[in-house]
């Protein structure tokens, strides 16, 4: 028995502290303890420092009256509302400029990305120049440039440029009539919803029929017809239950109607032009990543250039484009905080600006602001990840 075991000596058990599992556990516990201690110290220091200096703490300030006005609000607001309300106002303004910016930047980016690959020499050169110029200049500089470049040449309210007696453009903004909904307008909205549902159903049916019989169906025209026609019909049948509140020149400004303030316009232009350059590059690299054989195969099947791009190239390119697009959307949202430089009342300008200064509660205000941006960023990435998964090529 003893002889048999000779030579197959059991590997010596490593000392306890040499075992990988133990070491990793120890190391991680150490890390937790370190972080915990660090966090606790900071928390204690802050509390101590604030008590020391008699700085008020807590979120009670959110319920007290703000007492200042805000240039642009999407929800009712005046001086008598609370600081909590200023948070909402700023948040909505941030969301507004970010979502509009994302739409415009995407449009600009796609057009420019495709243009850069165009066979037309001058168009592709122009797209290249646009991309190289605007992505290499700091955004802050561009925002200031557009703001003062847009503002200076515009006339005062009394010398407004008037288009068609409904649009008024001056250095206070672009004034438009705002709709007033009268009795029965809700039926038009219902009709619109019905039309959208119908359009989706038609599209499904057409898709099925094409799969089965190969006969294409002009879904687009049918859908446009439905979505526009049905509400219009209802609208006319109800006797046009809509009137317009026209902007009128008052003593100093235009009153009534809706207005796009120059701060919003400048911020939007700068954000979408700047982000558009990055999206254009993403689009270009996405299209280039689709092998040329795909185009040739599509042409060999008899597809015309339009459907080739739409049905073969873009779906494949999107897989490369989407992740880059996501990070650009995130950047745009975070960059919208530069609004504070030109006085567009976004979250940072209103809440982390005026409110912070009037209440002096920097820690609470900045923590809330950061939490909002984190939440926005997380939701954008979650949505884009979901979308990306959906369009991923299913490999067999």
């Amino acid at each position: 028995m003893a002889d048999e075991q000779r030579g197959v000596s059991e590997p010596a058990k490593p000392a306890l502290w040499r075992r990988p599992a133990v070491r990793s556990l120890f190391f991680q516990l150490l890390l937790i303890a370190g972080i915990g201690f660090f966090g606790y110290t900071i928390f204690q220091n802050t509390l101590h420092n604030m008590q020391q200096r008699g700085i008020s703490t807590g979120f009670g300030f959110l319920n007290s009256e703000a007492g200042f006005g805000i240039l642009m609000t999407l929800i009712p607001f005046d001086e008598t509302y609370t600081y909590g309300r200023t948070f909402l106002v700023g948040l909505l303004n941030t969301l507004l400029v970010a979502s509009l910016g994302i739409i415009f930047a995407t449009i600009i980016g796609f057009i420019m990305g495709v243009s850069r690959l165009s066979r037309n020499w001058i168009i592709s050169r122009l797209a290249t120049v646009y991309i190289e110029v605007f992505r290499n200049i700091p955004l802050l500089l561009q925002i200031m440039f557009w703001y003062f470049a847009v503002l200076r040449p515009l006339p005062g309210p009394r010398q407004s440029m008037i288009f068609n007696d409904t649009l008024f453009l001056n250095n206070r903004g672009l004034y438009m009539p705002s709709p007033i909904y009268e009795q029965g307008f809700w039926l038009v909205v219902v009709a619109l919803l019905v039309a959208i549902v119908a359009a989706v159903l038609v599209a499904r049916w057409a898709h099925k029929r094409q799969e089965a019989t190969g006969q294409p169906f002009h879904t687009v025209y049918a859908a446009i017809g439905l979505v526009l026609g049905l509400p219009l019909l209802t609208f006319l049948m109800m006797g046009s239950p809509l009137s317009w509140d026209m902007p009128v020149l008052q003593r100093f400004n235009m009153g009534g109607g809706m207005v796009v303030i120059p701060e919003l316009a400048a911020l939007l232009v700068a954000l979408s032009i700047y982000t558009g350059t990055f999206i254009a590059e993403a689009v270009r690299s996405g299209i280039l990543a689709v092998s040329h054989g795909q185009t040739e195969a599509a042409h060999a099947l008899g597809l015309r250039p339009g459907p080739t791009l739409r049905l073969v190239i873009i779906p494949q390119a999107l897989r490369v484009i989407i992740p880059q697009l996501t990070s650009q959307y995130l950047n745009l949202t975070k960059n919208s905080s530069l609004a504070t430089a030109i006085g567009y009342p976004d979250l940072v300008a209103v809440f982390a600006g005026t409110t912070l200064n009037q209440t002096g509660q920097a820690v609470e205000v900045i923590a809330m602001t950061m939490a909002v941006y984190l939440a926005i960023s997380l939701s954008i990435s979650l949505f884009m990840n979901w979308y990306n998964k959906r369009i991923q090529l299913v490999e067999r």
Partner: protein
Amino acid sequence: MSVHTPHPDMPPPILNVGVLGWLRSNLFSSPLHSALSLFAIYLLYLTVPPMISWVFLEATWVGDSREACAGGGGACWVFVKVRINQFMYGFFPESEYWRINLAFGLLIVLAIPLFIKRFQSKGKLAIFILVVYPIITFQLFSGGNFGLTHVETSRWGGLSLTLILAGVGIVASLPLGIVLALGRRSKMPIVKSVSVVFIEFWRGVPLITVLFMSSVMLPLFLPEGTNFDKLLRAMIGIALFQSAYMAEVVRGGLAAIPKGQYEAAEALGLSYWKSMGLIILPQALKLVIPGIVNTFIALFKDTTLVLIIGLFDLLAIIQQAFADPDWLGYSIEGYVFAASIFWVFCFSMSRYSMSLEKKLHTGHAR
């Protein structure tokens, strides 16, 4: 018997060669393209000539006061000329400008060998630039030792401050970013989640709020009585913010290293840190140099935000000059000047990163 003489080749159709052929295939290949081309040419006609005449032809270049620009219809570059020293060096004492020049000259001299193919110890030089050079530069800027007069950070400014902020951001964020990237790929759940949370936090918030926090709230977090320089605080904020982005870049490089390399290192019996330090990281970091240059470009542009916390970088110091009662109304010249400086830096760096990408890509294309 007639000799067969081949008929001479017909010249190609005149519309397919030469200038006309080029024009036809590149500008007027279809009615749509023709219309687009004509529209683009019209746009260029509208914008380019007035711009050139404003910037060059009608601009005022000579003189040293506002009066020199009185008659000119174009840009007044005298404004920039008069203040150029301030734009470059901030409020640095004039007699000490040589120190800044020396610091940046030294960087250029040190960096040249990195671009020479035959130079062997590039890695060592790079480490020297990343570790020793910042110390030398700090000594040159701040002074206080070696008989150099001390210059407070509040006097630093202009382009040199912009470069310093961006440089510090990159140099300081590199090690932290590497650690975070390794942590994010770690098998230990707690290390991994800590890294993920750290990275996603800094990537999710705008730099403005980070700067504001580091400039005014950081002292609240520290034990009473500890206080350090405003510039340093801004740098800490930038470095933390940047390290998250750096971590993602490095992570891309780590992911691109074939699994065989990891396994080979393990098979050799190397410990984790040795296999990372000797096998994986040298390869991964080389791969991500273009990515690092790109983050540097982004950071370089983002440093303009420090004007919001009252530091005088290039943009801030130019804006401050607008307020000079002697030079009111020349803000466009200032903005154009700032834009062109930023553009030259960013454009050349992005070209460099692109060429690197091409060069590095060949070896790894699979």
